[in-house]
């Protein structure tokens, strides 16, 4: 009987604790100012992306598939000898790989005859600067076995690689490598494992779940609050997980988007740039407001999820894009996080 055998290739988001450097290294930090410290110093300021590149202007149907879907994030090391001209070949090879895995008993659904069609295509608009390689989209569809002739194809899994303003990584690698450090997947985890395995084997790269720290989430909260959105119907929501309790407890803090934007507008000084100090002041205001009302110190809890009208992000490395005009901006930040996880 066919069952599910795990394909152990992806590291969990909690991998951090298991890949510690030696005790000696860990206890010595790096002094203030070094660029790539042991603990990955977060930047003291970030530039907001230049005029948003709107995908909707060029390919409306493309942008639609990205929005309002939950994407699981991974960082990917540079791909060796990847050629954007061979996408058709890659689709065939991946298809054969999936069929072979199925033969071995790694059926993703028990007892159902599966015919998976693989499509690999390029997303030329999915980049930041001209130096970035174009995004790559992989889609898995199920062909219904009933009638092969006029078969309906149902999209069951999508995954895409991209690099938005990833110069920090690409400048350090040779020509043989293609830098697409951010990978986003939507669909069953088992398909993600299989596709990931094939890429890892074929291009000698490594996928790791991209976790988002509370510090990075607070940056996102501040950055996205500042974005001008036409219909501000959705409230800004922050979810906190309370530590050190015998039972799990989450606190959800909803803020009216106009209030949040008004607060942020009084804090941000230089248009086009955000500093760590401004993010701190923004979050501190929200925390003290909450403390005044509920006598609970949110700064002692862990920020796990941020939802705004632009996008929502979860610390386990899950993102949902809600506005196509700010897609580039969000991807730029995620690319940066992926690159620092790789390095």
């Amino acid at each position, binding site marked *: 009987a066919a069952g599910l055998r795990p394909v152990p290739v992806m590291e969990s988001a909690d991998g951090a604790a298991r890949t510690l450097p030696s005790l000696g290294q860990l206890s010595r*930090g790096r002094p*203030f100012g070094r660029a790539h410290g042991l*603990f990955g110093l977060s930047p003291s300021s970030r530039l907001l992306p230049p005029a948003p590149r709107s995908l909707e202007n060029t390919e409306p149907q493309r942008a639609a598939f990205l929005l309002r879907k939950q994407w699981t994030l991974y960082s990917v090391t540079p791909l060796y000898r990847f050629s954007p001209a061979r996408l058709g070949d890659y689709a065939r090879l991946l298809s054969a790989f999936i069929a072979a895995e199925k033969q071995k008993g790694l059926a993703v659904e028990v007892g159902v005859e599966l015919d998976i069609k693989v499509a690999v295509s390029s997303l030329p608009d999915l980049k930041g600067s001209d130096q970035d390689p174009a995004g790559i989209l992989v889609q898995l569809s199920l062909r219904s076995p009933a009638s092969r002739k006029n078969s309906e194809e149902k999209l069951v899994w999508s995954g895409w690689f991209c690099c938005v303003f990833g110069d920090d990584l690409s400048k350090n690698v040779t020509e043989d490598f293609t830098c697409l450090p951010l990978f986003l997947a939507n669909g069953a985890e088992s398909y993600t494992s299989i596709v990931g395995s094939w890429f890892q084997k074929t291009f000698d790269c490594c996928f790791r779940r991209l976790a988002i720290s509370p510090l990075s989430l607070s940056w996102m909260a501040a950055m996205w609050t500042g974005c001008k959105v036409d219909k501000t119907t959705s409230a800004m929501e922050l979810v906190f997980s309370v530590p050190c309790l015998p039972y799990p407890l989450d606190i959800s803090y909803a803020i009216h988007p106009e209030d949040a934007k008004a607060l942020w507008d009084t804090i941000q000084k230089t248009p086009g740039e955000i500093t760590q100090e401004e993010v701190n002041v923004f979050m501190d205001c929200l925390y003290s407001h909450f403390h005044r009302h509920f006598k609970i110190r949110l700064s*002692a809890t*862990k920020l796990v999820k941020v939802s705004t009208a632009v996008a929502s992000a979860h610390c386990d490395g899950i993102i949902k894009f809600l506005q196509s005009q700010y897609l580039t901006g969000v991807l730029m930040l995620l690319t940066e996080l992926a690159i620092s996880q790789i390095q």
Partner: protein
Amino acid sequence: HLATSLPLPSERDHLRPRIDLIVFMIDIKSKYSLKNVEASLAHVDASFFLGKVCFLVSGVGRMNYCSVEMNAIWKLGEVYGSPVLFCELELEGMRVATAQRLLRMLQICAGHVPGVSALSFGSLMRNSADD
């Protein structure tokens, strides 16, 4: 002696032994712990900062849970001229090693190690951190 914040309650002043070393603990997972330390520092007499204060940053094994920006911690060490130590309390080996380090520092600060004063040791630690 453990305290959650400073100043220490004045009622027990007369019963308290001399304090040789103050270790400010910052949990990287809690922004509040940094704020608490910053507020408590204001209550420490200036003479302590001649080698009798150090910052201990815990939770560094899980940078994914980081709620505190490292720049702020480094700046604290610089501003107060005191060493910053890192540890991960969830690892037994590191817990023991850190405890041994603190104990050694305490011995020096209490004057039990001949030839090494708290001040000279403090500047030694700062210089080695710049390597």
